[in-house]
């Protein structure tokens, strides 16, 4: 085989791989970003994770033809990346998450007070999610993506579908318990707050 023929064939192959990769970026970058953001809760970090995922795909582009389901494969890559990043960035204060969430979440037609209250509620939910055992937490977070079926979640996590269902059931039970407990605490605090306010008002009236 002539050297020129080999070079031409390589160039053609590379062009085909580039086109396939560009198509993957167009099709799945958004979904990967949302998966990354759901874990990292930081826009810049999530975008970095998406870029890193596609760079890994670029490095292993020879295997693209062997992949059966590109979507699940890509989500699995970005999932591993974000979990690794989250493990390394444990030192970041949790208040950043809530602030970032309040900035990012939609607030159409809501007053500033309502937005702040919603962000606080979401922060409380996310704090409870963080307290879940790892296995249950992962399934619960992936189940929030409407486009992922239980089979696909099982494929991303490398477990069986029945495990996904049982873990999801446990996660929901645990979340319900934790949120009820948290709400009970909030209710317990409210009357004392009111009493303090009433006492302050009475004091002012007395003056």
């Amino acid at each position, binding site marked *: 085989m002539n050297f020129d023929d080999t070079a031409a064939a390589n160039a053609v192959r*590379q062009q085909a791989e580039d086109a396939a*990769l*560009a198509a993957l*970026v*167009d*099709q*799945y*970058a*958004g*979904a990967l*970003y*949302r*998966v990354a*953001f*759901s874990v990292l*809760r930081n*826009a810049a970090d999530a*975008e970095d994770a*998406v*870029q890193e995922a*596609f*760079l890994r795909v*670029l490095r292993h582009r020879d295997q693209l033809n062997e992949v059966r389901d590109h979507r699940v494969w890509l989500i699995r890559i970005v999932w591993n990346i974000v979990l690794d990043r989250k493990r390394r960035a444990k030192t970041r204060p949790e208040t950043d998450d809530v602030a970032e*969430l309040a900035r*990012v*979440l*939609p607030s159409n037609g809501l007053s500033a007070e309502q937005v702040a209250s919603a962000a606080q*509620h*979401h922060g409380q*939910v*996310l704090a*409870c*999610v963080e307290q879940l055992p790892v296995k249950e937490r992962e399934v*619960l*977070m992936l*189940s*929030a*993506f*409407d*486009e*992922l*079926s*239980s089979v*696909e*979640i099982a494929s991303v996590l490398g477990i069986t579908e029945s495990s996904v*269902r049982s873990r*999801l*059931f446990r*996660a*929901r*039970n645990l*979340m*319900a318990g934790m*949120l*009820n407990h948290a709400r009970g605490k909030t209710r317990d605090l409210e009357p004392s707050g009111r009493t303090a306010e009433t006492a302050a008002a009475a004091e002012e009236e007395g003056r």
Partner: protein
Amino acid sequence: MSITPQNSYGRSGEGIDRAGTGEDTLRLIARLPAPDGLEERVRVALRAAPRHGRVLAWPVALRADAAWVRATAAAAIVMVVAGGGWSVYSHIQPWQPAKANAVPARVGTMGEFSGAGAVRSPQTLQPPVVSAPPKSAGLYPSQKKRHKKAAAATVLTGTLAPAAK
């Protein structure tokens, strides 16, 4: 990308009030749109990434009919590897069995005392033979007097005994 709901198990609820599990928050986050221009930025990053591993160029371009050079180089590499292996193999001493047998320390059972690891060594040499000292030699003066008295008493008892009878 359009969202097509697939996970019907999430909608069924499975007997748990999903609103009370905080899943709405997770779904809200999962539906957040990706920032504008994300795809373009990813494509730029992919274009900027190195595509191939760095390969050192061969200093002299080989001609197509110079196959014998490759064969010679391959043979030389094989020779070097084989020679190295043989030199290592020839320097290794074969394993030799130990000449002394290790005797395990006897451990007392049933409440016996153990030997504390002491090993009895057999007497393989002739013990030194010491000649018997002379009767009075080697005694101190006080011992000599005592010796004489004892001898005299023996003589007296020997003489008196028949008279008593």
